[in-house]
């Protein structure tokens, strides 16, 4: 073509530098997010068509509602009984697939009392749109 192409290379270098920054930040944050505190209480979460059930460490079971304490760390062990679901508490950015035959873990620590929506975010059939539960965070 015979013309100089240096602006393109500068531009590509800037784009790559930005991407490196985004990637490094993402790596850092994901590292922090995935570090589960030692005292986290385990909650077993089971998804099935089309409701959620929960089991606390002390053996208490709940269906469609989950009662937790404020400022307390919890580790969810998520699985499914039939097809893939996705356990999601949007306000707390808790999101992980519930896959049959597999246990996925994610942790969080609610810092605000109140009621929050739990929903299914992975298509699972007829009543997927209404596969909901309520998270109740109690001030203790």
């Amino acid at each position: 073509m015979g013309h100089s192409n240096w602006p393109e290379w500068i531009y590509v270098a800037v784009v790559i530098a930005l991407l490196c920054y985004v990637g490094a930040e993402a790596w850092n944050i994901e590292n922090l997010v995935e570090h589960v505190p030692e005292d986290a209480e385990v909650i077993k979460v089971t998804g099935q068509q089309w409701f959620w059930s929960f089991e606390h460490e002390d053996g208490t079971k709940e269906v469609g509602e989950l009662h937790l304490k404020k400022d307390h760390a919890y580790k969810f062990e998520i699985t499914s009984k039939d097809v893939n679901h996705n356990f999601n508490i949007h306000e707390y950015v808790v999101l992980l697939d519930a896959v049959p035959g597999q246990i996925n873990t994610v942790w969080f620590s609610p810092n605000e009392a109140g009621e929050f929506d739990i929903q299914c975010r992975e298509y699972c059939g007829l009543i997927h749109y209404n596969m909901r539960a309520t998270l109740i965070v109690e001030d203790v």
Partner: protein
Amino acid sequence: MVLELKKARPVWQIMFSTHHTDVGLMYLIFSILAMFIGGAMAIALRVELFAPGAQLIEDSMSFNRLFTTHGTTMIFLFLLPSASAVGNYLVPIMVRYKDMAYPKLNAIAFWMIPPAAVLVWLGMADFGWYANPPYSVISSPAPAAEMWIFGLKVLGVSSILGSINFVVTILKCKHPDLSIGKVPLLAWSFLSSSIIVLAAMPTFAAALLMLLTDRLGATGFFNPAVGGDPIAYQHLFWFTFHPEVYVLVIPAIGMMYEIIPRFSRRPIFSQGSGIFAFVMLSLVAFASWAHHMYATGMTFTEKTVFMIGTLAAVPASAMHVFNFLATMWNGRIKFATPMMWAVGGIALFFAAGAGGVVNSAMPLDFITHDSYWVVGHFHLFVFGTIAFGTIGFIYYLFPYVTGRMYNEKWGVVHFILVFVGACITFFTQHILGLYGMPRRIYDYPEIDSWIQMNALISVGAMIMLVGMGIFLANLIYSSAKGKPANLHDPFGLGGKYYYPYEQRNPHH
């Protein structure tokens, strides 16, 4: 170029022809038909979601069938065939060969598509376009699921045959005086995307067979009840269909490489960087498939690897955008309809790419995954970028195919309506996703922000519906009664860069 409609021919002469422009015309008409069928389904979905509660669709199963068939139609029956249409018209001309390398194979590849379409449309499967097991194995109703599987199988074979044809035509049949570096970028885009199809598609073909035998109860590859692994299917699926995104987007970029220099009245800024970016995209297309699966419980290392693979696709895409802008810079741009679509497509491509960087960053993906953000994001790609490039190119080809001019004024109105509608619909979907609305839901609870944004999205869809109605009317009316086009320079551009290759090649 052969003018199909100038001299009227009986329709079977076109149907049974193996000439590349005849096959191209059939691809074109079929893909436009599929676009309107898929679009009608999208409108039905948006009417249903306009407000909470049942609006138009009585039950969730019909809704699930509709969004599945909408996605399958748009990807496999509109975008892939429309790219093949453009390739059939222009690739042999650009490599200066008389036809495609294997004309009969070419016609067979086309004629496999309508029966597959009938299977998909009559079946109306309900498992979403990616048919995730175990739902698709144990829960999805027959015979719709089997019809979908067979339909996709046929479409996959058709796609492989078409790709073999493009690769052989470009590499083996190009004129000996034409070096591969001088082959126009549109033909290069078909070379890249065809090679991706050949590398990626067999994986999905295998996955489909495994899914079918699982459904028949003969095997349990993906069924955890008998020891299978449902996540394995997702790997096989996305190993084909993440590259498939590039199969769709690369020809659209190639079409923009044809439109932008011509209407800017300047040569392409850098042919070399365009080729480099196509090759880069074809390679990194295979490095990012599992970024669709962060939430399936992947380890930190796996997520990191696929985040890096995903980010690696950005510089190559950015090089294309730079090339477009540098070509337009200081050009005497004529904003005729095709140019408007191309420029609008580049703007939305940029927005879609920026959203893609957000999705690929691991912690942020857990906010956006399977929400309406994702719906907005990939529609910015498949509609905002790929369909925009394709529609612009349909306008661009129109005078060469029909010998008549489309109505320029209505073409501009079509663009403005669809561009505005697309911005309203797809950007709002991003925000709705941040507010937590999951995708693929038939109904939603009465949350104020969700209700308002869903209404807005549906209004945007209606604006696009009006625009597409104008498009259809313009196509039909102008091909019958439009002004005869000046085929040496239908867009009134003058000068030396502005002719399709066979008309008056300045280097001849």
